[in-house]
């Protein structure tokens, strides 16, 4: 065994510990950090010189604790949404601490235990939390080595970690992390440049660690909030009209309250919920009470419905605040070909497979809320305001739900559960929305319009580029009770906050509206429309889905006009080295130069974007076959390359990008929330169809670029835009017909291309 720490006096540790604690007096609040890059209240920046979320939580033991047995607990303010973040963060911590990943336990967002890192959104988790944990772990490893060196009386650089949770020094000295940590205070502020491990010697990062959350999900383990069963728990269902802006009348409250097994019917203003001993009783009571007339309680929904003309009319009728993002022209343009085009996207549902669910318990003046929201700390803020408690008296805990892809009903259902719990103290309340409530009441991904005009010069280079985008805010994350449905239903309703744009470079409707390409005479305008005729908020990739679709479609439209290969036109305008690499790599892996020539049915397309121009680089190439008789698009193969900096878990990245491609094909080729003046009419999977197995690609191959030691770049949303544009470009290549309005569904494709 080791000579370890017995040789060190406990006193020297305490002295050293006391010294560093003095350090931890942190400077107070600077600017507001918008955690997750979207709304959310976001934590204050207190240490602007530190990387990632250490900026707002600089003390090491808020991130990492090591017990006397050497077990490591890592705390993150981010949450698992099925994107595999738990596993990736465990890999990050294990690597920089130099311990086996099995030694690490990860605690995700919990207002009583973890740092507030704002939202888990916007592909920010690796950048914010991954970077914080990486640097916190490097700090901790440095402190462990320093402490051991002091005790052994050797130079700090003579102490090394061995990968198994031990430190080794000259002459066979050895000590476990637990022994050293027992006398080391981690309640100290991180320093910005603690030495990091050499990427060439990584043991855990960059490897495909099996995801820690998967086994339970395969075998019925308790994996989801829906699986929580607390002692004495009651089941609730909330009563609302068929969709936002409607209510039911009259409500048979007395009749339902008298049903056996119904505990109570909560009424608080126009908020109504049924609480029952058994779930099926609550469902039956809900079905009974829903047997009523629908009354529209808000202005009618836009008259034109979800078709392209309807989207354009609805949006262009709204007052606009025009935000100039790029102010061209900057030189005379000599145009040989000019293309003008309008592209549209309808309103989309998040379409979570599991409707939103939350649990809440109000007891002894304190409220606990279990939530699958992306903003655990926001759930606390909202619930506190809604039920009239101090924030300290509300404890919000994240528990995983069904995939959300943005702001689905998660925040609303948590507020609903909190309000019900307040009325039924002492009993845990489990509330799950019904399928039609999720479709009818969640905020949708906004409908959008772009208009582009671009010119190709006689030198076959782009001479001018104009991009205008019309969009509602995508950024309506609730930070107070006015942002959730229940906040508008209680007796003194909380006003709905006015929508605000997210400033560039992240942007919301404007996200990715500035092409990464080198383009002269570049003019970009965001027509920001704060009034929302349809309830909307964040859907995975926000405006990047339509903006990238538009930009990358236009590239192919220009290429066609100028008789240039789409690959060459892209490379000719891409100065960013990593962007070029990703495009070149996808071309090579797809065998772009040897691709099948279009024959009226088969065709190929490619597209590229760097997410937000500051996240991951992603290029997608697709080969499609268009059944002209039916209008059905079959994706034969999709190939993608992605550069996300150092990949913590390459297979995790592949899983996200594969999923992003399939989901984007579904959005782009299938989906539109339908509605009439009175209500949304896409209330189930037959009225809101999504891609099923027979229509997914024959193959999807994702290649992750090797970028050892490079900063993490958010990946989870990077494929949405490129996949959409690659699909449209492949259809245009195959048929010669350019489709600019989503969805490219069979009816539209058949009508546009006709039968040869």
């Amino acid at each position, binding site marked *: 065994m080791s000579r370890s720490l017995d040789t060190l006096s406990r006193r020297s540790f305490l002295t050293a510990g006391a010294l560093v604690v003095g350090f931890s007096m942190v400077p107070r609040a600077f600017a507001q950090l918008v955690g997750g890059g979207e709304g959310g209240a976001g934590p204050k920046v207190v240490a602007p010189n530190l990387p990632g979320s250490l900026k707002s939580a600089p003390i090491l033991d808020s991130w990492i604790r090591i017990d006397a047995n050497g077990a490591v607990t890592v705390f993150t303010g981010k949450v698992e949404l099925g994107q595999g973040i738990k596993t990736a963060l465990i890999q990050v911590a294990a690597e920089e601490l130099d311990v086996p990943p099995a030694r690490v336990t990860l605690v995700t967002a919990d207002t009583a235990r973890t740092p507030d890192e704002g939202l888990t959104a916007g592909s920010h988790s690796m950048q914010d939390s991954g970077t914080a944990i990486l640097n916190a772990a490097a700090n901790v490893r440095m402190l462990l080595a320093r402490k051991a060196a002091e005790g052994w009386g050797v130079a700090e650089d003579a102490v090394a970690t061995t990968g198994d949770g031990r430190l080794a020094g000259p002459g066979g000295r050895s000590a476990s992390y637990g022994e050293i940590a027992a006398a080391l205070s981690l309640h100290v502020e991180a320093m910005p440049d603690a030495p990091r491990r050499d990427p060439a010697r990584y043991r855990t990062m960059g490897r495909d660690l099996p995801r820690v959350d998967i086994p339970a999900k*395969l075998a*019925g383990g308790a994996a989801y909030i829906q699986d929580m069963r607390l002692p004495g728990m009651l089941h609730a269902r909330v009563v609302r009209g068929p969709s936002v802006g409607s209510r039911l009348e009259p409500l048979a409250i007395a009749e339902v309250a008298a049903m056996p097994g119904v505990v109570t019917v909560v009424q608080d203003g126009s908020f109504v919920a049924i609480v029952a001993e058994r779930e099926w009783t609550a469902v039956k009571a809900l079905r009974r009470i829903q047997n009523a007339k629908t009354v529209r309680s808000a202005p009618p929904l836009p008259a034109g419905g979800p078709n392209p003309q309807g989207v354009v009319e609805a949006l262009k009728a709204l007052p606009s605040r025009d935000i100039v993002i790029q102010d061209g022209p900057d030189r005379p343009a000599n145009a040989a070909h000019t293309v003008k085009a309008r592209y549209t996207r309808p309103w989309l549902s998040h379409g979570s497979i599991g409707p939103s669910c939350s649990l809440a318990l109000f007891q002894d003046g304190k409220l606990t809320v279990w939530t699958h929201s992306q903003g655990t700390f926001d759930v606390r803020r909202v619930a506190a305001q809604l039920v009239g408690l101090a924030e300290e008296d509300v404890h919000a805990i994240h528990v995983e739900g069904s995939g959300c892809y943005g702001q689905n009903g998660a925040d609303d259902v948590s507020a609903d559960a909190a309000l019900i719990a307040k009325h039924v103290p002492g009993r845990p309340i489990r509330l799950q929305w019904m399928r039609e409530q999720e479709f009818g009441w969640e905020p949708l991904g906004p409908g959008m319009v772009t208009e582009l005009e671009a010119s190709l010069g006689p030198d076959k280079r782009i001479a001018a580029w104009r991009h205008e985008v019309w969009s509602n805010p995508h950024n309506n994350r609730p930070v107070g009770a006015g942002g959730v449905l229940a906040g508008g239903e209680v007796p003194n309703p909380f006003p709905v906050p006015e929508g605000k744009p997210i400033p560039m470079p992240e942007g919301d409707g404007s996200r990715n509206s500035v092409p990464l390409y080198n383009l002269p005479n570049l003019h970009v305008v965001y027509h920001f429309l704060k009034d929302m005729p349809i309830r909307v908020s964040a859907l995975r990739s926000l405006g990047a889905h339509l903006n990238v679709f538009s930009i990358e479609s236009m590239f192919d439209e220009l290429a066609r006009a100028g008789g240039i290969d789409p690959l060459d036109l892209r490379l000719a305008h891409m100065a960013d080295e990593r962007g070029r690499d990703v495009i070149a790599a996808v071309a090579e892996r797809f065998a772009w130069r040897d691709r099948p020539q279009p024959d009226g049915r088969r065709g190929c397309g490619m597209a590229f974007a760097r997410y937000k121009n500051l996240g991951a680089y992603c290029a997608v190439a697709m080969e499609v076959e268009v059944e002209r008789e039916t209008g059905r698009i079959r994706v034969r193969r999709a190939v993608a390359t992605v550069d996300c900096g150092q990949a913590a878990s390459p297979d995790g990245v592949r899983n996200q990008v594969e999923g992003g491609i399939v989901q984007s094909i579904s959005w782009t080729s299938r989906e539109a929330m339908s509605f009439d003046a009175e209500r949304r009419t896409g209330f189930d999977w037959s009225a809101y169809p*999504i891609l099923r197995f027979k229509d997914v690609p024959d193959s999807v191959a994702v290649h992750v670029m090797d970028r050892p030691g490079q900063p993490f770049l958010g990946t989870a949303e990077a494929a949405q835009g490129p996949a959409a544009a690659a699909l449209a470009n492949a259809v245009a290549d195959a048929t010669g017909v350019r489709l600019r309005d989503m969805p490219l569904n069979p009816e539209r494709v058949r009508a546009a291309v006709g039968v040869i």
Partner: protein
Amino acid sequence: MTMTLTINGAEHRVEAEPDTPLLYVLRDDLGLNGAKYGCGLGQCGACTVHVDGRPVFSCLTPVAAVQGRRVTTVEGLGSPGNLGPLQQAFEQEQAAQCGYCIAGMIMRAQVLLDRGGSISDADIRNHMQTNLCRCGTHMRILRAVRRAVDATGARTSSLEAKP
């Protein structure tokens, strides 16, 4: 009403209204998490279980109708610490993102495996058509089912090879 149910080979007595969908009895009375509420309409497959070896939507099946019949849930195929062969194939392919659809996918696919015989990729797609996934995990799910089919096929053909 008191009913006796056979779930994953064990008998359970439950007290429930006879029209209660099997889904709620499995989840709320028996504490089984595998079958999920997705739509309650027979449209998504998240609630898929087997009744006498056939796939059914437990959200649409009244509990009274399964008395005296064999019900199998994903818990009957293995546990998180001891995964069954099909679950292992999903683990090997890392075939889950949020995973909410996956228990239903596994129960659906198991029927195909049980049927045996030669199974093409198109057969797998056709068979899985009833089940929805929103995360876009389809490619991995297809690979996992293929992997399990091949493993079963290998077992079958090695048996067949014997005289």
